[in-house]
């Protein structure tokens, strides 16, 4: 018996040793080889200082030590799944807009939001009148299929995107209908139906397609995009997009040979992959991971305050007291420790001091600051005659969407209950929350949600306008939003935007809570990554050193 037992134990021990005590892994694929080598180099040399937090300007140059021509593989794990396909202008999904920036170019770029646009496919521009702009186009640019870029491509792209053609596009909601007159093959005039103040911001977000593709290959480009950008798509899986360097890129070949964007839902998995050297960049680092990354010599952190408003959105018609009583709305505002919430979420999260995030053009701090004041909140409820009589407020939160949503909602409820209001927190996934928001039988009164934009006030204000679900029928608000959208003189536009912010702060149709942290972590050997507050993340001209 004992002999058999010893035999069995010996086999068990051998099995455990065989599985657990192997030597260091020899990578099986090319990308893993690069990852392992890169991490080892960083650990040994530690040449690259850790930058925490860092705001990276668009013009940041790559390190001179980077090799000439494209080399290496960069794997970026993203937090939001990809859009359905590459059908142009049919989404405003952030993940799609971000990856499009690797494959396509724009007429202009706005690297720093408060500063004027810089040339991309357009080299110079002149304002003709408040509806018309003339653009000189860059010559010698080629699409990835080898065809030349010219005015026809701009006409086809802008007219399709802006809704000036018969084909409806989702992107057109950001645009004013704009037609394009071709002056010569490299000069165009953009004529908008009405003054369009956000034209430059939208041009910096609207990819330029090939006119031939738009006319003759509409189905083909849904699966194989064809841009003038630094990378071309070579592998198109549901949750993984592989791109290769476009060596004919007009700004010079990228320094990265292969760029992989891959959707990995779980933030812990993304972090593990980065720390194990199996990814070079990870997206949307949650606050609880920031300390781990900033404490590592082999990793870097890019943290900015994103152009993303996290609000407690009130659904019109669901809670009549909210709709009809300004004192009640102010009481809610004063019962919430919004600064505390920003601290709870952490990272570069900042208190929302306006309905426009701080990084948005013309953002202005609201006055008063509406800090938490329980006595003032109770007095406002008394003044409105609703102390103790307000019905329960149902607050809907989405788990797995915004960081620490459950804790934030619990803190919101605690604040409201402190002033004598009763609350009910309902936590669901995002799909169920959105369904409740839109269905007639929905029961949620307030929704913990976010809205992000490209940094232009009009793009951000859209969510409060009459075309969106959060509009309370406030005609004054809509008229001021329209004014911001159509005032093209910058000085005048700043003034009307400030007036609008004051008005919104006074009306308080929703509760602005905080502006989100946007953090991307990378391995230390990835240089020159361009991370912007509007979530644009560009891998050109970034490089990876072996």
């Amino acid at each position, binding site marked *: *018996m004992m002999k*058999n*037992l010893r*035999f*069995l*134990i010996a086999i*068990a021990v051998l*099995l455990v040793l065989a*599985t*657990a005590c*192997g*030597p*260091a*892994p020899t*990578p*099986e*694929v090319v990308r*893993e080889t690069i990852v392992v080598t890169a991490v080892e180099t960083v650990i040994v040399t530690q040449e690259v200082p850790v930058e925490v937090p860092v705001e990276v300007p668009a013009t940041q140059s790559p390190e001179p030590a980077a090799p000439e021509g494209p080399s290496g593989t960069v794997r970026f794990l993203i937090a939001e*799944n*990809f*859009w*359905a*396909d590459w059908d142009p202008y*049919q*989404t*405003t999904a952030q993940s799609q807009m971000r990856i499009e920036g690797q494959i396509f170019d724009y007429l202009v770029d706005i690297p720093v939001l408060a500063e004027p646009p810089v040339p991309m496919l357009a080299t110079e521009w002149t304002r003709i009148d408040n509806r018309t702009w003339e653009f000189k186009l860059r010559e010698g640019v080629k699409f990835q299929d080898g065809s030349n870029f010219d005015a026809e491509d701009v006409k086809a792209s802008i007219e399709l995107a802006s809704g000036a053609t018969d084909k*409806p596009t*989702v992107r057109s*909601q950001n645009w004013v209908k704009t037609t394009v007159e071709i002056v010569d093959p490299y000069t165009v005039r953009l004529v908008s139906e009405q003054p369009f103040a956000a034209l430059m911001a939208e041009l910096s977000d609207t990819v330029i397609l090939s006119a031939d593709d738009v006319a003759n290959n509409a189905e083909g480009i*849904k699966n194989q995009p064809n841009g003038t950008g630094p990378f071309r798509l070579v592998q*198109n*899986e*549901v*949750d993984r997009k592989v791109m290769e360097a476009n060596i004919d890129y007009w700004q010079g070949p990228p320094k990265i040979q292969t760029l992989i964007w891959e959707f*990995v*839902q*779980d933030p*812990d*998995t993304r972090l*593990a*992959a980065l*720390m*194990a050297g*199996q990814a070079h960049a990870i997206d949307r680092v949650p606050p609880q991971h920031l300390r781990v990354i900033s404490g590592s010599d082999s990793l870097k952190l890019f943290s900015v305050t994103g152009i993303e408003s996290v609000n407690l*959105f009130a659904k019109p018609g669901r809670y009549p007291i909210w709709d009809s009583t300004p004192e009640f709305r102010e009481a809610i505002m004063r019962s919430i420790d919004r600064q505390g919430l920003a601290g709870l979420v952490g990272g570069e999260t900042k208190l929302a001091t306006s309905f426009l995030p701080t990084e948005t053009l013309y953002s202005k701090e609201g006055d008063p600051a509406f800090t938490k004041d329980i006595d003032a909140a109770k007095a406002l409820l008394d003044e409105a005659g609703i102390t103790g009589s307000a019905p329960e407020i149902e607050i809907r939160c989405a788990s797995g969407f915004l960081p620490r949503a459950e804790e934030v909602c619990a803190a919101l409820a605690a604040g409201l209950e402190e002033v004598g209001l009763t609350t009910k927190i309902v936590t669901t*996934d*995002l*799909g*169920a929350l*959105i*369904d*409740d*928001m839109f269905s007639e039988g929905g029961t949620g009164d307030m929704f913990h*949600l*976010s*809205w992000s934009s490209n940094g232009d006030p009009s793009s951000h204000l859209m*969510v409060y306008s009459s*075309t*969106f*679900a959060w509009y309370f029928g406030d005609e004054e608000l809509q008229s001021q939003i329209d004014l911001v959208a159509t005032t093209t003189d910058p000085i005048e536009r700043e003034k009307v935007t400030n007036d609008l912010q004051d008005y919104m702060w006074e009306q308080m149709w929703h509760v602005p809570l905080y502006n989100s942290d946007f953090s991307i972590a990378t391995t230390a050997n990835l240089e020159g990554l361009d991370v912007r507050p509007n979530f644009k993340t560009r891998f050109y001209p970034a490089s990876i050193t072996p």
Partner: protein
Amino acid sequence: MLKYTLLRTTQMAVVVFGVVTLVFFILRFASGDPARMMNPPGTPEDMVQLTREKIGTDKPLMVQYWNYISGLARADLGTSFRGSQPVLDTLLGAFPNTALLAVVTILFSSTVALILGIGAALGANSLFDRSVLVYVSIALATPSFWLGIVLVLIFSIKLKWLPAIDMTGPKSFILPVLTLAVVLTPILIRTIRQSFLETLSDDHIRAARARGIPERRVILVHGLKVAAIPLVTLIGLQLGMILAGSYVVESIFNWPGIGKLTLDAVSNRDFPMIQGGVLIAALAFVIVNFFVDLAYAALDPRIRMGSK
């Protein structure tokens, strides 16, 4: 045997058809409009409607169902809402990865469970037996999502011995297989131990020993053959479970299999992909069960297929 196989095949087809129909309607009636999920919250209705038209959820429910069922008959599972790739191709790409993980896990778990279970039965109430039972208790109480992360922390991040994610070669199997094995082995070990304890006192074992057959042969041939019968059902169920997709483990290790694919699809309300994932799961279960029944007959001559 032929009659039995035909009968079981018909039963399997009915079960699978029932499952896919149920899932189709549950998805449509459950909350979460995929078109809204694909647009930022608050997007105007006409824009969302454009997305619905694009993915086909604007059509009446029964039209969608007919399209789905008729497509199924042609082995067309539709296209993913995210990415527009054919669902069948995507699933066929993922299934071998899950199947490989399942087979390796089952082989490893069964081997470990046999060694520990038989060892514990042979030395009942010994220190080894008690140690095995302690392991069983701890393993039963260990959640796989926690264990997976801890293993990654130790072996991938600290020691850098093994890959943290992906299916990149033989070494990438170790952590997912260990994580799954800790979930699967406790019940296997307990079953083997109990079954062996009962078998070892059977008359045929005593008779084998009386005939002078070596102890190792008595245990591994005469004992194991009888004790393995309940094990076959259990292993079959566990194989079916992993083949259907080990959602948590595949997600933690970014394993490109059916589980991760389905989990991602659920969070995105990618109906065609969820339906495809469930179809694979249903098929895996019924087919494995069918083979378990056949294995029963092979192991126990008293059981005859189709006999009354």
